[in-house]
């Protein structure tokens, strides 16, 4: 029994080491674009000095060097490959990561703390793309993201809409009868209200759905569960106690893919943001341009402009390509009618 217990501790340490190693590799990929060549001898010397200094107790400097020679070799191998990285907000396993992987499985998702970090990362060239949730079928617009879109110079190069399925996760070998408390993002808790109340669970808000799963894995407690994605069960070695516990089956979130450059591929959907002059009929005159040109709008959202109290920006999506003369003509007219106009990009409409 003692042997088993200690081996479990060792397994946990191995898991933590690999997780940290993966985090290191994520930074390696992020800084690739910031340096001139893959090999940087000065920096390598610095790393070795560093690890020699921190080698302690049982870990001898020679042993650390051996490990890090391999790590640096692998880091360079990764940097030499043409890997595209996409930033998302949240911990690994977040629904944004699920969206990124279903948008393009070849992309490497990189976790970011806040939405603004995703925008900044793309702007600073550390990330090739960013993926952010823009609207949810039950909850409506994601305010923070829409506000960042108004201020950003980034372009939209794609979109994807994914169904959100919540699962009840617990650490392996948990007896479901022992579960009393369930952690998740308040939105996920709200979307699973029926399940939680039917089973008399105590809901506790957490900063992130994937963060709740991560915390569960780290704590190893048997009386708590998390509501997160199926990807989280895989990443954090958790059991799915119950699948699809959401109250409404049709729960979808639409994500936008951001890039510093506009998409080169042909698109059939466009996004734009504008502000009108403060006068009667201003918004109507803009919308009439689309109506007259027979252009189908798919979304219109108004958000207060944070820098200018009392002012509103409109986020508008419509079907059509910016290479189409009809669309170009309409957009020229819109520019003249508005106080601020920003074309966000033309991209392929997501399959519904």
């Amino acid at each position, binding site marked *: 029994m003692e042997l088993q217990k200690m081996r479990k501790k060792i397994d946990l340490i191995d898991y933590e080491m690999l997780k940290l190693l993966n985090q290191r590799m994520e930074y390696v990929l992020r800084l690739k674009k910031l340096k001139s060549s893959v090999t940087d001898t000065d920096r390598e010397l610095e790393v070795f000095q560093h690890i020699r200094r921190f080698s302690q107790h049982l870990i001898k400097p020679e042993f650390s060097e051996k490990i890090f020679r391999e790590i640096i070799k692998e880091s360079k191998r990764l940097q030499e490959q043409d890997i595209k990285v996409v930033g998302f907000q949240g911990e690994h396993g977040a629904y944004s990561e699920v969206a990124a992987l279903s948008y393009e499985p070849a992309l490497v998702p990189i976790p970011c703390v806040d939405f603004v970090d995703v925008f900044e990362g793309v702007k600073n060239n550390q990330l090739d793309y960013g993926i952010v949730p823009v609207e949810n079928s039950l909850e409506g617009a994601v305010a923070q993201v829409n506000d960042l879109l108004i201020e950003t110079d980034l372009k939209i190069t794609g979109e994807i809409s994914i169904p959100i399925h919540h699962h009840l996760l617990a650490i392996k070998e948990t007896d*479901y*009868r022992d579960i009393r408390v369930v952690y998740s993002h308040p939105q996920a808790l709200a979307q699973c209200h029926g*399940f939680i109340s*039917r*089973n*008399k669970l105590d809901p506790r808000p957490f900063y992130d759905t994937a963060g709740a799963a991560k915390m569960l894995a780290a704590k190893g407690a048997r009386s708590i569960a998390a509501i997160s994605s199926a990807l989280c069960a895989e990443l954090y070695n958790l059991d799915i*106690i*119950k699948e699809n*516990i959401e109250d409404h089956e049709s729960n979808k979130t639409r994500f936008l893919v951001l890039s510093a450059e506009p998409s080169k591929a042909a698109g059939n959907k466009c996004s734009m943001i504008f502000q009108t002059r403060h006068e009667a009929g201003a918004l109507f005159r803009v919308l009439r341009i689309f109506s007259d040109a027979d252009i189908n709008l798919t979304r219109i959202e108004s958000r207060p402009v944070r820098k200018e109290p009392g002012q509103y920006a409109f986020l508008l999506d419509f079907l059509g390509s910016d290479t189409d003369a009809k669309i170009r003509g309409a957009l020229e007219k819109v520019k003249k009618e508005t106080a601020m106009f920003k074309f966000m990009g033309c991209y392929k409409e997501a399959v519904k």
Partner: protein
Amino acid sequence: MKNIKLVALSGSKRTIVKVDGVKIGEGFTVIAGPCSVESEEQTLETARAVKKAGADMFRGGAFKPRTSPYAFQGLGLKALKILEKAKKETGMPIVTEVLDTRDVSWVCEYADILQIGARNMQNFSLLKEAGKSNKTVLLKRGMHSTIEEWLNCAEYILNEGNPNVILCERGIRTFETYTRNTLDLSAIPAVKELTHLPVIVDPSHAVGKVSLIEPMCLAAVAAGADGLIIEVHRNPTEALSDKEQALNPRQFSDIMKKTRALYKYVTELRG
């Protein structure tokens, strides 16, 4: 009968229990499946077979009340997930037994009908918990219970606010040892006289012998039962529980044909 208020028949209005498109108490409903969920493969194969033979609902045990604590106790949650899959594939609603009050809300997440077994018929806290749920309850008659005791147990469930109860006669203990129990066929018309609830028959547990199941199925139809619940295993010789009374899919299919034909005839006869 004393204290039987909510389940007592008053006038001619009978309860028709609706479960996912299946109506119990209108026409003849057949529930079939293995005694225990043993594996995904065994369960899905049996589900496909009974569906093909014309079963309306699927049964399978996740928690098994066994005479010996060393006998197979059921797969629990794993079995519930397998039953959910069987429903997804065949569309048949799921009937499964619940043994423990702590399991009621969880079993409700997977099953369409909660079965309260003969051994638990008078487990009053379990009856109350099932009465608070929003699922139909299949209440089996205890092996040494009178009809009055049985109906009082149904009263417990209705009294908690759950009107959807199906009664199930599964044989009572007598001095006879050749059969596992003695099927009390007279209980069916008796219950029909006393209550508005639908009543079905479990011939498998009543006789405990494959050879006696068919005649008892036909007798149940003649006695006016609203349906049957029968144990079927894709290969009875390898069943982990109740192998002596499980039909194979071919035997089940054969009985289904005869039973449906007799039901049609009896209905015409009664007008």
